[in-house]
């Protein structure tokens, strides 16, 4: 039977609203009344919510299984969204009609664009978010999404059946078993359970398994995954203690005010819900030698730091900062947790010292001399996010001191770029389970997993974002071809084509594809993106065509620092490249064709950005084409690299290829240890296979790779 546990009202409401039959009943004789869905999403975190809504937007009847409905949309760690690189991801999630950007535009308390002076390609949209508002808005959105059903329940096991012969993989997932023994069947299953495998919370020398106190964590799902042969690794992370707002002396600290006007995250919003003057400030303070002293003196009380589990190369905790960069002042940002929250999140003070020492350390810091650390409540301490009824870790409880977390993740080289696992057909992984860190990284994977789970059900080709198309593509390509040995975080420096993949043009890059190839984008958003694309193209053509001598430009726009010594005519587009020129001044100089492009502020700003990067992008396009050509060359999915004889490959290359199972020649060439010679041999193999297939089909097909290349060309801007 369907098991609702306390949220039946909401679920039912959602059913009635959509006038949708209460889950199709399976006609199998063995389970006559078992509910059946297209897609099941396990986990209601940032990956889970995006995955569930994306699948529903694509038209799949979707079930979101979460341990507690009231934790959906919980911001379990820092109270902020976006940043440099992460802001890019959010724009891309939004371009695919994902949730987090829109919700952030309704829930922020401090909006700021980082890197304003460093060029629009690396602007980082960021906001402090009110946790409570975010959760409320997210739950409202989730529970009002058509085709999406939410159910409370913990998953105990997967239901596995015979694999489909036309795909690779040991077996196929066809549903889940809940902890109460009931079953739910589905065509695809997405696992977004965060740091769920063998999570351990560490404070000082104490270690607790991350599960409810007194409960023996059921490890059914974890065991199933291990039995299936998934390779796991271990990572660690941490979170700072929260400080009572009224115990901080803000008057002596550096105040940071929000932007005016606020820049919204979503392409569909003109502005955010709150006026700049009503927003909350952040404050900056610094550590000092006394903090170092406390950390260094008490290292013996700090098992998290001593453990050999690989932490990131970057400095996640105050301990690692002090150890690796001694005798320096480190920044501490004091961030509001919400409009009416009395808590402050000290960004940069992630710590695993025993609770009493944490407070001692914090009171050494300027402005925090009388700070009250919120003391742990033992009962609440180990409340987990328990979608799997197992060792699931929760950061979500606000009344914790700082603590460290150690957890298992599944090596992401075991999944394809569509986030489906190699081993189990129709099983998708998204979020922290793949070794990433951050809400935005999780959300980005969630959208892709949701879309692909849905496309898999309708037997359509997967929706893969290439490295040349978006940060999402870089994120997933890095994970699936290189794996990760530290919590993977997005940086703009990871992106080869950074100047093309900007926050301003994410809609042009992804919305059109999302609409055509995935069907996850609303008609309204699609039309807006189409209008924007054609307006931009038209504007650029017109700007290219207007040519005057440089002295004439100088007369028209006196403030431009153009050199008048050159006699060649200068295009308006080149004039727009100058820092001191914008569309407004250009339209004043040449009003006739240009005036109409200044009416829409966003259009004018985007034309200016396009002009800034025009010359470099011309060169980058060649490179992008090369990469796309390689990515159009698909490697057969069922190829067994270890035994295949037709390809001459070194043993090392075989093992690397076998583990990562790259889908294209492009991905294969990025795997370290795979030589150019091996790539050529693979190319030959692709060609052979194609010819053999063509001979078998006896149809005069055009070359597959060429067709794919054509498709890619079409996709380009």
């Amino acid at each position, binding site marked *: 039977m369907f098991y609702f546990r306390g949220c039946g009202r909401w679920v039912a409401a959602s059913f009635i609203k959509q006038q949708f039959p209460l889950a199709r009943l399976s006609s199998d004789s063995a389970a006559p009344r078992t509910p059946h869905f297209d897609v099941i999403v396990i986990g209601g975190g940032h990956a889970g919510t995006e995955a569930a809504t994306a699948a529903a937007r694509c038209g799949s009847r979707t079930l979101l299984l979460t341990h507690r409905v009231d934790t959906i949309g919980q911001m379990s760690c820092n109270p902020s969204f976006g940043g*440099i690189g992460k802001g890019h991801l959010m724009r891309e999630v939004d371009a695919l009609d994902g949730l987090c950007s829109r919700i952030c535009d309704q829930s922020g308390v401090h909006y700021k664009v980082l890197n304003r002076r460093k060029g629009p390609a*690396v602007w980082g949209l960021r906001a402090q978010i009110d946790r409570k508002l975010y959760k409320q808005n997210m739950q409202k959105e989730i529970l009002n999404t058509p085709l999406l059903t939410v159910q409370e329940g913990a998953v105990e096991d997967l239901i596995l059946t015979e694999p489909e012969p036309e795909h690779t993989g040991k077996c196929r997932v066809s549903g889940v078993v809940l902890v109460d023994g009931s079953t739910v069947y589905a065509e695809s299953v997405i696992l977004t359970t965060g740091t769920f495998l063998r999570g351990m919370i560490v404070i000082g020398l104490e270690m607790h398994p991350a599960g409810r106190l007194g409960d023996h964590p059921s490890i059914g799902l974890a065991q199933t995954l291990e039995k299936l042969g998934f390779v796991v690794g271990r990572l660690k992370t941490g979170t700072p203690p929260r400080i009572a707002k009224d115990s901080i002396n803000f008057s002596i600290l550096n105040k940071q005010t929000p932007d005016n006007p606020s820049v919204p995250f979503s392409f569909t919003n003109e502005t955010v819900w709150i006026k700049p003057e009503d927003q909350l400030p952040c404050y900056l303070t610094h550590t000092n030698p006394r903090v170092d002293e406390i950390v260094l003196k008490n290292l013996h009380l700090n098992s998290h730091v001593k453990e050999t589990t690989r932490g990131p190369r970057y400095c996640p905790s105050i301990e690692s900062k002090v150890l690796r960069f001694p005798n320096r002042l480190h920044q501490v940002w004091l961030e509001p947790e919400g409009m009416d929250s009395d808590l402050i999140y000290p960004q940069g003070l992630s710590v695993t010292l025993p609770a009493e020492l944490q407070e001692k350390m914090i009171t050494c810091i300027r402005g925090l001399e009388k700070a009250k650390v919120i003391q742990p409540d033992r009962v609440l301490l180990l409340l987990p996010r328990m979608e799997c009824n197992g060792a699931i870790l929760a950061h979500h409880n606000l009344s914790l001191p700082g603590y460290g977390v150690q957890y298992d993740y599944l090596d992401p080289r075991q999944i394809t770029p569509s986030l489906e696992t190699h081993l189990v057909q129709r099983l998708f992984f998204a979020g922290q389970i793949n070794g990433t860190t951050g809400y935005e990284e999780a959300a980005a994977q969630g959208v892709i997993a949701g879309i692909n789970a849905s496309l898999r059900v309708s037997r359509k080709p997967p929706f893969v974002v290439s490295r040349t198309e978006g940060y999402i593509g870089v994120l997933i390509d890095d994970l699936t071809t290189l794996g990760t040995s530290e919590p993977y975080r997005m940086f703009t420096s990871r992106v*080869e084509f950074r*100047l093309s993949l900007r926050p301003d043009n994410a809609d042009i890059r992804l919305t059109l594809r999302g609409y055509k190839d995935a069907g996850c984008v609303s008609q309204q958003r699609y039309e807006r993106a189409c209008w924007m694309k054609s307006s931009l193209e038209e504007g650029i053509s017109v700007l290219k065509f*207007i040519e005057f001598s440089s002295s004439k430009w100088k007369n028209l726009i006196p403030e431009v620092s153009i050199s008048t010594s050159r006699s060649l005519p200068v295009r308006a587009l080149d004039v727009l490249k100058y820092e001191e020129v914008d569309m407004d001044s250009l339209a004043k100089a040449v009003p006739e064709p240009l005036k109409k492009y200044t009416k829409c502020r966003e259009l004018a700003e985007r034309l200016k950005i396009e002009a800034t990067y025009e010359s470099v992008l011309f060169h980058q396009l060649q490179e992008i084409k090369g990469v796309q050509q390689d990515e159009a060359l698909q490697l057969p999915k069922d190829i067994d690299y270890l035994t295949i004889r037709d390809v001459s490959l070194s043993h090392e290359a075989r093992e690397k290829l076998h583990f990562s199972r790259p889908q294209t020649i492009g991905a294969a060439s990025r795997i370290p240890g795979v030589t150019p*010679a091996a790539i050529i041999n693979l190319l030959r193999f692709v060609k052979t296979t194609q010819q053999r297939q063509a001979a078998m089909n006896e149809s005069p097909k055009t070359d597959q790779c060429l067709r794919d290349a054509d498709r890619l060309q079409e996709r380009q801007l």
Partner: protein
Amino acid sequence: MRDSKPPLAVICTALCQARSVLSSIPYSYCQSRCARTLKIRSHVARGTTFRYTHLHRAPASLSTLHQPMEAKIFRRWAGRILRLCTRRSSGAPAPGSGATIFALSSGQGRCGIAVIRTSGPSSGHALRILSAARDLPPARHASLRLLSDPRSGEPLDRALVLWFPGPRSFTGEDCVEFHVHGGPAVVSGVLQALGSVPGLRPAEAGEFTRRAFANGKLNLTEVEGLADLIHAETEAQRRQALRQLDGELGHLCCGWAETLTKALAHVEAYIDFGEDDNLEEGVLEQADIEVRALEVALGAHLRDARRGQRLRSGAHVVVTGPPNAGKSSLVNLLSRKPVSIVSPEPGTTRDVLETPVDLAGFPVLLSDTAGLREGVGPVEQEGVRRARESCNFLATVVASVGAQSPSDSSQRLLLVLNKSDLLSPKGPGPRRDLPPHLLLSCLTGEGLDGLLEALRKELAAVCGDPSTGSPLLTRARHQHHLQGCLDALGHYKQSKDLALAAEALRVARGHLTQLTGGGGTEEILDIIFRDFCVGK
């Protein structure tokens, strides 16, 4: 009529495309005429009012403004432009995408004929520039052309050239084959001339095959054979690269790459972490200083390399020694022509005289120098100074009797004792305490074979064995990437936009890592996290 006018943007786009198509077909008659036509047309459209109606009227005015012949040509090109536009919109790969590549396709080392091949949209342009011809030869027919260096106009070789317009070519793109005489100097000269043509670059291993494959030009057996070849090519290039990297240039490149990677990492750190984490003051300024210094070093190196390039020869051999030892006689003997004036009088040669010769299969620049002595006239002293200077940067030194061995041992030294015919057959030989040496008589030619053999060994050590790989080829590649690196660094200076500045450094680093290997993003992140305390 008015109802059917296309939108402004479409016309603008079409005209821009037309312009770019025309500018990609230089030198041809049609083009120059057509360009003029278009120029007039865009002139009409470019009036200050920029009236749409002007644009609309322009094509109609063509037929009245110009001769029928030109109108016909214009129509022909308009047809091509239109085809191009439609092809673009249908999504087929636009012709002429990608850079034009060139490489020595025949075996390396000395051979009768060497084949140099280019592939890509600028192939025809390159052929015209090298053969100084206005027209391309007939397609797929061998024609004899005098190739010359486009910069100096210096003739390189009389060669057979073949023009294969795409798609009926090996790679499916426009291709040119140059069948030149197989001397290393000629091959190197043609390669360097090609490298100087804008839009051309040396091919990476297997790149021709990749292109042929991408354009569906290879059948199975061909790919089979080529896979082996590419394996060999990659291996050879790797070995070549390793050998080069052992040398001085390799150390230089690695040092530069390291500096550049660090500078880039610091700029990247400033972009990714500059706002939220505290980086130390002056991160960017430090990077600026390092990039400037690198620019100076690269510029100096390239200017130096250009001097060698003018000579198009591998090694530099200098004959030096005391006056009247017979240095000039030796030079004349080795070059088999009277390069220097010889006389029994000491101090006849007062300047450095250079002559390119082929020594034991190696291209060599042979220098005769003034005898090293003190206390003579200012002209000869200057000659002596120059002689000493030339010894400082040259690879092989043949020293005649009594020359002091240069203090730094990076130069190779052969000690040759001339005038062996003056030794009485029964009398005492040269002094015992002399270092290893060769005996020679320029007068009788005795000992010449021994000297040539010794020179061959020395040159092989300097230039690499010509039978295993061509240092000339690698040098063209080096030069291409170093120049590319330097050009990119120039853009770094200009950019106020930090993302653009970082892009310039990325491109520059990309060129250097083509020579040194490595170059992943992880390297950058490693440096960022090593040098800065950044994180949550």
